[in-house]
Protein backbone atom coordinates (compact mmCIF):
# COMPACT_ATOMS: atom_id res chain seq x y z
CA UNK A 1 0.00 0.00 0.00
CA UNK A 2 2.81 2.42 0.82
CA UNK A 3 3.50 4.24 -2.39
CA UNK A 4 6.94 5.55 -1.55
CA UNK A 5 9.79 3.97 0.41
CA UNK A 6 9.30 4.55 4.13
CA UNK A 7 12.67 6.32 4.29
CA UNK A 8 11.37 9.14 2.09
CA UNK A 9 9.18 10.38 4.94
CA UNK A 10 9.21 14.10 5.68
CA UNK A 11 6.66 14.67 8.41
CA UNK A 12 6.60 12.37 11.41
CA UNK A 13 3.60 12.68 13.73
CA UNK A 14 3.28 11.28 17.24
CA UNK A 15 0.12 10.84 19.28
CA UNK A 16 -0.42 12.95 22.39
CA UNK A 17 -3.99 12.60 23.65
CA UNK A 18 -3.40 15.18 26.38
CA UNK A 19 -2.97 17.78 23.63
CA UNK A 20 -6.49 17.33 22.28
CA UNK A 21 -8.85 16.83 25.21
CA UNK A 22 -12.36 15.97 24.07
CA UNK A 23 -11.25 14.89 20.59
CA UNK A 24 -11.00 11.27 19.54
CA UNK A 25 -7.46 9.97 19.04
CA UNK A 26 -8.14 8.18 15.77
CA UNK A 27 -10.03 11.13 14.35
CA UNK A 28 -7.22 13.55 15.18
CA UNK A 29 -4.60 11.21 13.74
CA UNK A 30 -6.65 10.71 10.60
CA UNK A 31 -6.58 14.48 10.13
CA UNK A 32 -2.77 14.39 10.25
CA UNK A 33 -2.75 11.75 7.52
CA UNK A 34 -5.18 13.79 5.43
CA UNK A 35 -2.75 16.66 5.86
CA UNK A 36 0.05 14.53 4.47
CA UNK A 37 1.91 13.18 7.51
CA UNK A 38 3.86 10.22 6.19
CA UNK A 39 4.88 8.28 9.29
CA UNK A 40 2.89 7.91 12.52
CA UNK A 41 3.93 6.83 16.00
CA UNK A 42 1.74 5.80 18.89
CA UNK A 43 3.23 7.06 22.13
CA UNK A 44 1.27 6.35 25.30
CA UNK A 45 3.54 6.11 28.31
CA UNK A 46 0.81 6.52 30.93
CA UNK A 47 -2.14 4.35 29.89
CA UNK A 48 -2.62 0.69 30.86
CA UNK A 49 -1.25 -1.95 28.48
CA UNK A 50 -4.73 -2.97 27.30
CA UNK A 51 -5.70 0.52 26.20
CA UNK A 52 -2.35 0.96 24.43
CA UNK A 53 -3.05 -2.26 22.56
CA UNK A 54 -6.52 -1.02 21.65
CA UNK A 55 -5.16 2.28 20.35
CA UNK A 56 -2.42 0.45 18.45
CA UNK A 57 -4.95 -1.79 16.72
CA UNK A 58 -7.09 1.17 15.69
CA UNK A 59 -4.13 3.21 14.44
CA UNK A 60 -2.73 0.22 12.58
CA UNK A 61 -5.98 -0.06 10.68
CA UNK A 62 -6.03 3.70 10.02
CA UNK A 63 -2.44 3.96 8.79
CA UNK A 64 -2.87 0.94 6.57
CA UNK A 65 -5.78 2.68 4.85
CA UNK A 66 -3.56 5.67 4.14
CA UNK A 67 -0.49 3.63 3.22
CA UNK A 68 1.59 5.22 5.98
CA UNK A 69 4.12 3.37 8.18
CA UNK A 70 3.00 2.83 11.78
CA UNK A 71 5.45 2.81 14.68
CA UNK A 72 4.76 1.89 18.31
CA UNK A 73 6.74 3.57 21.06
CA UNK A 74 8.33 1.21 23.59
CA UNK A 75 5.88 -1.72 23.40
CA UNK A 76 7.62 -4.23 21.17
CA UNK A 77 5.04 -6.87 22.08
CA UNK A 78 2.16 -4.64 21.01
CA UNK A 79 4.00 -3.73 17.81
CA UNK A 80 4.28 -7.43 17.00
CA UNK A 81 0.71 -8.17 17.98
CA UNK A 82 -0.86 -5.48 15.74
CA UNK A 83 1.69 -5.99 12.94
CA UNK A 84 3.08 -2.45 13.23
CA UNK A 85 5.83 -1.45 10.84
CA UNK A 86 8.26 -0.92 13.69
CA UNK A 87 9.06 0.34 17.15
CA UNK A 88 10.66 3.43 18.56
CA UNK A 89 12.91 3.13 21.60
CA UNK A 90 14.62 5.59 23.90
CA UNK A 91 18.14 5.58 25.34
CA UNK A 92 16.93 3.89 28.52
CA UNK A 93 14.83 1.22 26.82
CA UNK A 94 15.89 -2.20 25.55
CA UNK A 95 19.00 -2.42 23.33
CA UNK A 96 18.52 -2.27 19.57
CA UNK A 97 19.82 -5.82 19.15
CA UNK A 98 17.19 -7.13 21.54
CA UNK A 99 14.38 -5.27 19.72
CA UNK A 100 15.68 -6.57 16.39
CA UNK A 101 15.70 -10.13 17.67
CA UNK A 102 12.09 -9.85 18.82
CA UNK A 103 10.81 -8.02 15.72
CA UNK A 104 12.72 -9.78 12.99
CA UNK A 105 14.60 -8.14 10.11
CA UNK A 106 11.72 -6.65 8.14
CA UNK A 107 10.65 -4.12 10.77
CA UNK A 108 11.81 -0.60 11.49
CA UNK A 109 13.63 0.42 14.64
CA UNK A 110 13.89 4.06 15.54
CA UNK A 111 15.96 5.42 18.39
CA UNK A 112 15.81 8.72 20.26
CA UNK A 113 19.23 10.37 20.45
CA UNK A 114 20.37 13.52 22.24
CA UNK A 115 23.94 13.89 21.01
CA UNK A 116 26.12 12.82 18.13
CA UNK A 117 27.74 10.00 20.09
CA UNK A 118 24.37 8.34 20.73
CA UNK A 119 23.43 8.90 17.11
CA UNK A 120 26.56 7.23 15.75
CA UNK A 121 26.11 4.33 18.14
CA UNK A 122 22.47 3.85 17.09
CA UNK A 123 23.53 3.90 13.45
CA UNK A 124 26.25 1.30 14.15
CA UNK A 125 23.85 -0.87 16.13
CA UNK A 126 21.43 -1.11 13.21
CA UNK A 127 18.78 1.53 13.88
CA UNK A 128 16.74 2.33 10.77
CA UNK A 129 16.32 5.96 11.71
CA UNK A 130 16.99 8.20 14.65
CA UNK A 131 15.23 11.05 16.37
CA UNK A 132 17.41 14.11 16.94
CA UNK A 133 16.29 16.27 19.81
CA UNK A 134 14.75 17.80 21.69
CA UNK A 135 15.77 20.70 19.47
CA UNK A 136 13.75 23.11 21.62
CA UNK A 137 12.42 22.79 25.15
CA UNK A 138 9.14 20.93 25.09
CA UNK A 139 6.25 20.14 27.38
CA UNK A 140 6.04 16.70 25.80
CA UNK A 141 9.38 15.81 27.41
CA UNK A 142 9.67 18.19 30.39
CA UNK A 143 12.97 18.50 32.16
CA UNK A 144 15.14 17.42 29.27
CA UNK A 145 17.66 20.03 28.17
CA UNK A 146 17.20 21.22 24.57
CA UNK A 147 20.01 20.15 22.26
CA UNK A 148 19.57 23.21 19.98
CA UNK A 149 19.95 23.26 16.25
CA UNK A 150 23.70 22.71 16.48
CA UNK A 151 23.10 19.00 17.08
CA UNK A 152 20.80 19.00 14.04
CA UNK A 153 23.68 20.35 11.98
CA UNK A 154 26.06 17.71 13.39
CA UNK A 155 23.59 14.97 12.60
CA UNK A 156 23.15 16.29 9.06
CA UNK A 157 26.90 16.13 8.58
CA UNK A 158 27.66 12.76 10.14
CA UNK A 159 24.59 10.54 10.07
CA UNK A 160 23.77 8.53 6.95
CA UNK A 161 20.51 6.89 8.05
CA UNK A 162 17.36 9.03 8.06
CA UNK A 163 17.14 11.36 11.03
CA UNK A 164 14.13 13.33 12.15
CA UNK A 165 14.39 16.54 14.16
CA UNK A 166 12.03 16.53 17.12
CA UNK A 167 11.20 18.54 20.19
CA UNK A 168 9.41 21.86 20.46
CA UNK A 169 9.25 22.28 16.70
CA UNK A 170 6.51 24.63 15.58
CA UNK A 171 5.64 26.44 12.39
CA UNK A 172 7.47 29.44 13.83
CA UNK A 173 10.83 27.71 14.24
CA UNK A 174 10.60 24.98 11.59
CA UNK A 175 12.51 27.08 9.05
CA UNK A 176 15.46 27.40 11.47
CA UNK A 177 15.52 23.64 11.99
CA UNK A 178 15.45 23.08 8.24
CA UNK A 179 18.20 25.64 7.76
CA UNK A 180 20.26 23.76 10.33
CA UNK A 181 20.12 20.71 8.05
CA UNK A 182 17.02 18.74 8.97
CA UNK A 183 14.94 17.41 6.06
CA UNK A 184 12.49 15.46 8.18
CA UNK A 185 10.52 17.06 10.97
CA UNK A 186 8.49 15.72 13.84
CA UNK A 187 6.04 17.93 15.68
CA UNK A 188 3.71 16.81 18.41
CA UNK A 189 1.74 19.55 20.13
CA UNK A 190 2.05 21.88 17.12
CA UNK A 191 0.12 19.33 15.10
CA UNK A 192 -2.18 17.25 17.29
CA UNK A 193 -2.75 20.20 19.61
CA UNK A 194 -3.73 22.46 16.72
CA UNK A 195 -7.30 23.40 15.86
CA UNK A 196 -6.80 21.97 12.40
CA UNK A 197 -4.17 19.20 12.41
CA UNK A 198 -4.51 18.61 8.65
CA UNK A 199 -3.78 22.22 7.90
CA UNK A 200 -0.85 22.26 10.33
CA UNK A 201 0.61 19.23 8.53
CA UNK A 202 0.22 20.89 5.14
CA UNK A 203 2.02 23.98 6.44
CA UNK A 204 4.94 21.93 7.76
CA UNK A 205 5.18 19.98 4.51
CA UNK A 206 5.13 23.17 2.51
CA UNK A 207 8.10 24.47 4.47
CA UNK A 208 9.99 21.23 3.96
CA UNK A 209 9.12 21.20 0.26
CA UNK A 210 10.29 24.76 -0.23
CA UNK A 211 13.51 24.04 1.60
CA UNK A 212 14.18 21.00 -0.59
CA UNK A 213 13.38 22.91 -3.76
CA UNK A 214 15.85 25.62 -2.86
CA UNK A 215 18.45 23.04 -1.90
CA UNK A 216 17.95 21.10 -5.12
CA UNK A 217 18.35 23.94 -7.46
CA UNK A 218 18.96 27.06 -5.51
CA UNK A 219 16.70 29.78 -6.84
CA UNK A 220 17.41 30.53 -10.47
CA UNK A 221 16.87 33.88 -12.11
CA UNK A 222 15.64 33.58 -15.67
CA UNK A 223 14.02 35.79 -18.27
CA UNK A 224 10.44 34.70 -18.74
CA UNK A 225 8.30 36.27 -21.45
CA UNK A 226 10.60 39.25 -21.45
CA UNK A 227 10.58 39.78 -17.68
CA UNK A 228 13.02 38.83 -14.93
CA UNK A 229 11.67 35.84 -13.02
CA UNK A 230 12.85 33.76 -10.07
CA UNK A 231 12.11 30.06 -9.99
CA UNK A 232 13.09 26.96 -8.08
CA UNK A 233 12.00 24.75 -10.96
CA UNK A 234 14.69 22.40 -12.21
CA UNK A 235 13.28 21.87 -15.68
CA UNK A 236 10.78 23.32 -18.09
CA UNK A 237 7.96 21.02 -17.06
CA UNK A 238 8.38 22.02 -13.40
CA UNK A 239 8.46 25.68 -14.40
CA UNK A 240 5.15 25.49 -16.28
CA UNK A 241 3.61 23.62 -13.36
CA UNK A 242 5.05 26.05 -10.83
CA UNK A 243 3.46 28.89 -12.81
CA UNK A 244 0.09 27.16 -12.62
CA UNK A 245 -0.10 27.00 -16.42
CA UNK A 246 0.14 23.25 -16.92
CA UNK A 247 -3.41 22.96 -18.25
CA UNK A 248 -2.96 25.41 -21.10
CA UNK A 249 -1.90 24.57 -24.63
CA UNK A 250 1.48 26.22 -24.53
CA UNK A 251 4.47 26.29 -26.82
CA UNK A 252 7.82 26.89 -25.17
CA UNK A 253 10.94 28.46 -26.53
CA UNK A 254 14.27 28.41 -24.74
CA UNK A 255 16.95 30.84 -25.92
CA UNK A 256 15.07 31.18 -29.20
CA UNK A 257 14.80 27.44 -29.83
CA UNK A 258 11.45 25.67 -29.60
CA UNK A 259 11.34 22.88 -27.04
CA UNK A 260 8.67 20.32 -27.87
CA UNK A 261 6.44 19.33 -24.98
CA UNK A 262 7.84 15.81 -24.80
CA UNK A 263 11.25 17.28 -23.99
CA UNK A 264 10.19 19.67 -21.24
CA UNK A 265 11.05 17.35 -18.37
CA UNK A 266 14.53 16.81 -19.82
CA UNK A 267 15.18 20.48 -20.41
CA UNK A 268 17.11 21.87 -17.45
CA UNK A 269 16.58 25.47 -16.49
CA UNK A 270 19.81 27.29 -15.92
CA UNK A 271 20.35 30.75 -14.60
CA UNK A 272 19.94 33.48 -17.20
CA UNK A 273 18.07 31.47 -19.83
CA UNK A 274 15.47 33.26 -21.91
CA UNK A 275 12.15 31.44 -21.94
CA UNK A 276 9.06 32.33 -23.92
CA UNK A 277 5.75 30.64 -23.25
CA UNK A 278 3.18 31.37 -25.89
CA UNK A 279 -0.39 30.44 -26.69
CA UNK A 280 -3.12 31.34 -29.15
CA UNK A 281 -5.50 34.25 -28.88
CA UNK A 282 -8.24 35.63 -31.08
CA UNK A 283 -7.01 37.34 -34.22
CA UNK A 284 -7.74 38.00 -37.84
Amino acid at each position, binding site marked *: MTEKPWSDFELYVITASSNHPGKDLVEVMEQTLIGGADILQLRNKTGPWESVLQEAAALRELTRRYGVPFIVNDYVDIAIQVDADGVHIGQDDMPIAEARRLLGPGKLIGVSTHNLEQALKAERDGADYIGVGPVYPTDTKPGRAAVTTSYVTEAAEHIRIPFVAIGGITLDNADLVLEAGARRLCAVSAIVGSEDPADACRSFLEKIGRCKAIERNAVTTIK*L*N*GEKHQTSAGNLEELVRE*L*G*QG*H*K*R*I*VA*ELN*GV*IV*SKGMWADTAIQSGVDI*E*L*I*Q*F*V*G*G*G
Partner: protein
Amino acid sequence: MLASYDTAVLRLGGRELRSRFFLGTGRFPSPAVMQQALDASGVEVITFAVRRVDLDSYEDDSILQHLEERGLHFLPNTSGASTAEEAVRIARLAREAGLGNWIKIEISGSPVTLLPDPIETLKATELLAKEGFVALPYTSDDPILCKRLEEAGAAAVMPGASPIGTGLGLLNPYNLGLIIEEAKVPVIVDAGIGSPKDAAEAMELGASAILANTPVAKAKDPVRMARAFAMAIEAGRLAYEAGRIPKKRYASASSDPAGSLFRHPAMSSTGEGY
Protein backbone atom coordinates in the same frame (compact mmCIF):
# COMPACT_ATOMS: atom_id res chain seq x y z
CA MET B 1 -38.33 26.24 -53.01
CA LEU B 2 -34.90 27.67 -53.63
CA ALA B 3 -32.63 25.48 -55.70
CA SER B 4 -29.08 25.34 -54.44
CA TYR B 5 -26.09 25.40 -56.73
CA ASP B 6 -22.71 24.10 -55.82
CA THR B 7 -19.90 26.52 -56.42
CA ALA B 8 -16.49 25.12 -57.32
CA VAL B 9 -14.43 23.93 -54.37
CA LEU B 10 -11.42 25.99 -53.39
CA ARG B 11 -8.17 24.03 -53.42
CA LEU B 12 -5.67 25.47 -51.01
CA GLY B 13 -2.62 23.95 -49.38
CA GLY B 14 -3.66 20.43 -50.22
CA ARG B 15 -7.18 20.96 -48.92
CA GLU B 16 -10.54 21.20 -50.61
CA LEU B 17 -12.67 23.89 -49.05
CA ARG B 18 -16.41 24.21 -49.67
CA SER B 19 -16.69 27.50 -47.85
CA ARG B 20 -14.90 30.49 -49.33
CA PHE B 21 -15.29 32.46 -46.12
CA PHE B 22 -12.35 32.58 -43.68
CA LEU B 23 -13.24 34.03 -40.30
CA GLY B 24 -10.95 35.76 -37.82
CA THR B 25 -11.48 35.05 -34.13
CA GLY B 26 -10.52 38.39 -32.57
CA ARG B 27 -12.72 40.99 -30.86
CA PHE B 28 -15.87 38.91 -30.45
CA PRO B 29 -17.94 40.01 -27.45
CA SER B 30 -17.65 36.53 -25.91
CA PRO B 31 -16.47 33.02 -26.76
CA ALA B 32 -20.11 31.91 -26.85
CA VAL B 33 -21.02 34.50 -29.48
CA MET B 34 -17.99 33.47 -31.49
CA GLN B 35 -19.12 29.83 -31.39
CA GLN B 36 -22.56 30.81 -32.66
CA ALA B 37 -21.03 32.99 -35.35
CA LEU B 38 -18.93 30.02 -36.45
CA ASP B 39 -22.10 27.95 -36.74
CA ALA B 40 -23.90 30.67 -38.67
CA SER B 41 -20.99 31.29 -41.03
CA GLY B 42 -20.25 27.71 -42.04
CA VAL B 43 -16.55 28.60 -42.26
CA GLU B 44 -13.92 25.89 -42.47
CA VAL B 45 -10.87 28.07 -41.88
CA ILE B 46 -10.36 30.31 -38.87
CA THR B 47 -7.48 32.58 -38.06
CA PHE B 48 -5.93 33.44 -34.73
CA ALA B 49 -2.85 35.12 -33.31
CA VAL B 50 0.12 33.92 -31.28
CA ARG B 51 0.82 35.72 -28.02
CA ARG B 52 2.71 35.30 -24.75
CA VAL B 53 0.83 33.33 -22.12
CA ASP B 54 -0.83 35.53 -19.50
CA LEU B 55 1.04 34.16 -16.49
CA ASP B 56 -1.18 36.01 -14.03
CA SER B 57 -4.26 34.19 -15.21
CA TYR B 58 -5.05 30.61 -14.36
CA GLU B 59 -8.02 30.57 -16.68
CA ASP B 60 -7.35 29.03 -20.04
CA ASP B 61 -8.19 31.89 -22.38
CA SER B 62 -6.77 30.05 -25.34
CA ILE B 63 -8.97 30.59 -28.35
CA LEU B 64 -8.59 26.94 -29.25
CA GLN B 65 -10.18 25.73 -26.08
CA HIS B 66 -13.59 24.87 -27.54
CA LEU B 67 -12.68 24.76 -31.18
CA GLU B 68 -10.70 21.61 -31.62
CA GLU B 69 -13.66 19.29 -31.92
CA ARG B 70 -15.13 21.31 -34.79
CA GLY B 71 -12.75 19.93 -37.41
CA LEU B 72 -11.81 23.42 -38.53
CA HIS B 73 -8.64 24.28 -40.32
CA PHE B 74 -6.42 26.61 -38.36
CA LEU B 75 -4.63 29.56 -39.87
CA PRO B 76 -2.40 31.28 -37.32
CA ASN B 77 -1.11 34.71 -38.24
CA THR B 78 2.24 36.34 -37.54
CA SER B 79 0.74 39.60 -36.29
CA GLY B 80 3.09 41.44 -34.00
CA ALA B 81 6.02 40.72 -36.26
CA SER B 82 7.74 43.64 -37.98
CA THR B 83 10.51 41.69 -39.68
CA ALA B 84 10.69 38.49 -41.72
CA GLU B 85 12.79 36.93 -38.98
CA GLU B 86 10.13 37.60 -36.34
CA ALA B 87 7.43 36.23 -38.60
CA VAL B 88 9.40 33.04 -39.18
CA ARG B 89 9.84 32.63 -35.43
CA ILE B 90 6.11 33.01 -34.79
CA ALA B 91 5.31 30.59 -37.62
CA ARG B 92 7.56 27.93 -36.10
CA LEU B 93 5.99 28.39 -32.68
CA ALA B 94 2.53 27.99 -34.16
CA ARG B 95 3.52 24.87 -36.06
CA GLU B 96 5.00 23.40 -32.88
CA ALA B 97 1.57 23.53 -31.28
CA GLY B 98 0.57 20.78 -33.67
CA LEU B 99 -2.12 22.63 -35.58
CA GLY B 100 -0.79 22.16 -39.06
CA ASN B 101 1.53 24.10 -41.31
CA TRP B 102 -0.57 26.96 -42.62
CA ILE B 103 0.61 30.44 -41.80
CA LYS B 104 -0.80 33.84 -42.60
CA ILE B 105 2.23 36.08 -42.98
CA GLU B 106 1.34 39.43 -41.49
CA ILE B 107 4.23 41.85 -41.09
CA SER B 108 3.13 45.34 -40.24
CA GLY B 109 5.19 48.23 -41.53
CA SER B 110 3.27 50.99 -39.77
CA PRO B 111 1.44 51.11 -36.47
CA VAL B 112 -1.04 53.65 -37.88
CA THR B 113 -2.14 51.91 -41.07
CA LEU B 114 -1.01 48.38 -40.18
CA LEU B 115 -0.19 48.10 -43.87
CA PRO B 116 2.08 45.18 -44.67
CA ASP B 117 5.79 45.73 -45.18
CA PRO B 118 6.25 44.45 -48.75
CA ILE B 119 9.99 43.73 -48.52
CA GLU B 120 9.79 41.77 -45.28
CA THR B 121 6.62 39.99 -46.39
CA LEU B 122 8.34 38.79 -49.55
CA LYS B 123 11.37 37.60 -47.56
CA ALA B 124 9.23 35.75 -45.02
CA THR B 125 7.15 34.14 -47.76
CA GLU B 126 10.24 32.76 -49.41
CA LEU B 127 11.72 31.48 -46.13
CA LEU B 128 8.53 29.88 -44.89
CA ALA B 129 7.61 28.30 -48.22
CA LYS B 130 11.08 26.73 -48.26
CA GLU B 131 10.48 25.39 -44.75
CA GLY B 132 7.38 23.60 -45.96
CA PHE B 133 4.76 25.99 -44.67
CA VAL B 134 1.63 26.75 -46.64
CA ALA B 135 2.58 30.41 -46.83
CA LEU B 136 -0.35 32.83 -47.13
CA PRO B 137 0.97 36.38 -47.18
CA TYR B 138 -1.25 39.33 -46.31
CA THR B 139 -0.09 41.94 -48.80
CA SER B 140 -0.89 45.33 -50.21
CA ASP B 141 -2.95 45.27 -53.40
CA ASP B 142 0.03 45.64 -55.70
CA PRO B 143 -0.22 43.37 -58.76
CA ILE B 144 3.56 43.15 -59.21
CA LEU B 145 4.20 42.35 -55.56
CA CYS B 146 1.49 39.69 -55.63
CA LYS B 147 3.21 38.12 -58.63
CA ARG B 148 6.52 38.15 -56.77
CA LEU B 149 4.92 36.53 -53.74
CA GLU B 150 3.49 33.82 -55.94
CA GLU B 151 6.94 33.20 -57.43
CA ALA B 152 8.42 33.08 -53.92
CA GLY B 153 6.17 30.14 -53.12
CA ALA B 154 3.00 31.66 -51.67
CA ALA B 155 0.15 29.12 -51.71
CA ALA B 156 -2.26 32.04 -52.14
CA VAL B 157 -1.92 35.80 -52.02
CA MET B 158 -4.05 37.83 -49.66
CA PRO B 159 -4.28 41.44 -50.79
CA GLY B 160 -6.08 43.83 -48.49
CA ALA B 161 -9.17 45.69 -49.71
CA SER B 162 -8.27 48.58 -47.37
CA PRO B 163 -6.35 48.81 -44.04
CA ILE B 164 -7.18 46.30 -41.30
CA GLY B 165 -10.28 47.07 -39.31
CA THR B 166 -11.25 50.19 -41.30
CA GLY B 167 -14.27 48.71 -43.04
CA LEU B 168 -13.59 50.99 -46.01
CA GLY B 169 -14.23 48.22 -48.51
CA LEU B 170 -12.51 47.85 -51.88
CA LEU B 171 -10.44 51.02 -52.29
CA ASN B 172 -8.87 49.85 -55.52
CA PRO B 173 -11.01 47.29 -57.35
CA TYR B 174 -8.95 47.97 -60.46
CA ASN B 175 -5.78 46.68 -58.82
CA LEU B 176 -7.60 43.75 -57.24
CA GLY B 177 -8.96 42.89 -60.67
CA LEU B 178 -5.46 42.90 -62.12
CA ILE B 179 -4.12 40.74 -59.31
CA ILE B 180 -6.90 38.21 -59.85
CA GLU B 181 -6.35 38.24 -63.60
CA GLU B 182 -2.63 37.58 -63.27
CA ALA B 183 -2.59 35.14 -60.35
CA LYS B 184 -1.98 31.43 -60.77
CA VAL B 185 -2.67 30.88 -57.07
CA PRO B 186 -5.90 31.68 -55.21
CA VAL B 187 -6.45 35.33 -54.30
CA ILE B 188 -8.01 35.78 -50.87
CA VAL B 189 -9.16 39.31 -50.15
CA ASP B 190 -8.14 40.04 -46.58
CA ALA B 191 -8.67 43.13 -44.45
CA GLY B 192 -10.74 46.27 -44.82
CA ILE B 193 -14.00 44.56 -45.77
CA GLY B 194 -16.82 46.54 -44.15
CA SER B 195 -20.00 44.68 -44.99
CA PRO B 196 -21.31 41.74 -47.02
CA LYS B 197 -21.66 44.04 -50.04
CA ASP B 198 -17.85 44.52 -50.09
CA ALA B 199 -17.36 40.77 -49.82
CA ALA B 200 -19.77 40.13 -52.67
CA GLU B 201 -18.01 42.77 -54.76
CA ALA B 202 -14.64 41.13 -54.26
CA MET B 203 -16.05 37.71 -55.03
CA GLU B 204 -17.67 38.98 -58.21
CA LEU B 205 -14.29 40.34 -59.24
CA GLY B 206 -13.09 36.78 -59.07
CA ALA B 207 -11.52 36.58 -55.61
CA SER B 208 -11.19 32.98 -54.45
CA ALA B 209 -12.18 33.70 -50.85
CA ILE B 210 -12.69 36.41 -48.25
CA LEU B 211 -11.04 36.70 -44.86
CA ALA B 212 -12.94 38.92 -42.44
CA ASN B 213 -12.93 39.46 -38.72
CA THR B 214 -13.81 42.92 -37.43
CA PRO B 215 -16.97 43.48 -39.57
CA VAL B 216 -18.42 40.29 -38.11
CA ALA B 217 -17.08 40.42 -34.55
CA LYS B 218 -17.92 44.10 -34.04
CA ALA B 219 -21.33 44.06 -35.73
CA LYS B 220 -24.30 44.71 -33.44
CA ASP B 221 -25.28 41.10 -33.97
CA PRO B 222 -22.18 39.12 -34.93
CA VAL B 223 -24.12 35.91 -35.46
CA ARG B 224 -26.51 37.39 -38.02
CA MET B 225 -23.67 39.25 -39.68
CA ALA B 226 -21.70 36.02 -39.97
CA ARG B 227 -24.62 34.49 -41.83
CA ALA B 228 -25.01 37.58 -44.03
CA PHE B 229 -21.34 37.37 -45.02
CA ALA B 230 -21.63 33.68 -45.82
CA MET B 231 -24.59 34.39 -48.10
CA ALA B 232 -22.91 37.36 -49.79
CA ILE B 233 -19.73 35.41 -50.43
CA GLU B 234 -21.68 32.55 -51.90
CA ALA B 235 -23.76 34.96 -54.00
CA GLY B 236 -20.64 36.74 -55.22
CA ARG B 237 -19.03 33.47 -56.16
CA LEU B 238 -22.12 32.23 -57.98
CA ALA B 239 -22.31 35.53 -59.86
CA TYR B 240 -18.66 35.27 -60.83
CA GLU B 241 -19.15 31.74 -62.11
CA ALA B 242 -22.35 32.79 -63.89
CA GLY B 243 -20.63 35.73 -65.65
CA ARG B 244 -21.92 39.24 -65.33
CA ILE B 245 -23.01 41.45 -68.24
CA PRO B 246 -20.68 44.08 -69.53
CA LYS B 247 -21.29 47.63 -68.37
CA LYS B 248 -22.88 50.03 -70.91
CA ARG B 249 -23.20 53.74 -71.10
CA TYR B 250 -26.87 53.87 -72.19
CA ALA B 251 -29.97 51.90 -71.45
CA SER B 252 -31.02 48.81 -73.32
CA ALA B 253 -34.58 47.60 -73.04
CA SER B 254 -35.24 44.19 -71.65
CA SER B 255 -37.85 43.53 -74.40
CA ASP B 256 -37.28 43.60 -78.14
CA PRO B 257 -38.68 46.88 -79.60
CA ALA B 258 -40.01 44.96 -82.66
CA GLY B 259 -43.77 44.66 -82.49
CA SER B 260 -44.13 47.67 -80.23
CA LEU B 261 -47.66 49.09 -80.37
CA PHE B 262 -46.42 52.63 -80.89
CA ARG B 263 -43.82 54.04 -83.13
CA HIS B 264 -41.59 56.92 -81.97
CA PRO B 265 -38.65 58.20 -83.94
CA ALA B 266 -36.20 57.69 -81.06
CA MET B 267 -37.23 54.03 -80.64
CA SER B 268 -36.16 53.16 -84.17
CA SER B 269 -32.51 52.98 -83.15
CA THR B 270 -31.01 49.59 -82.37
CA GLY B 271 -31.12 50.25 -78.68
CA GLU B 272 -27.42 49.60 -78.38
CA GLY B 273 -25.28 52.18 -76.68
CA TYR B 274 -22.04 53.61 -77.89
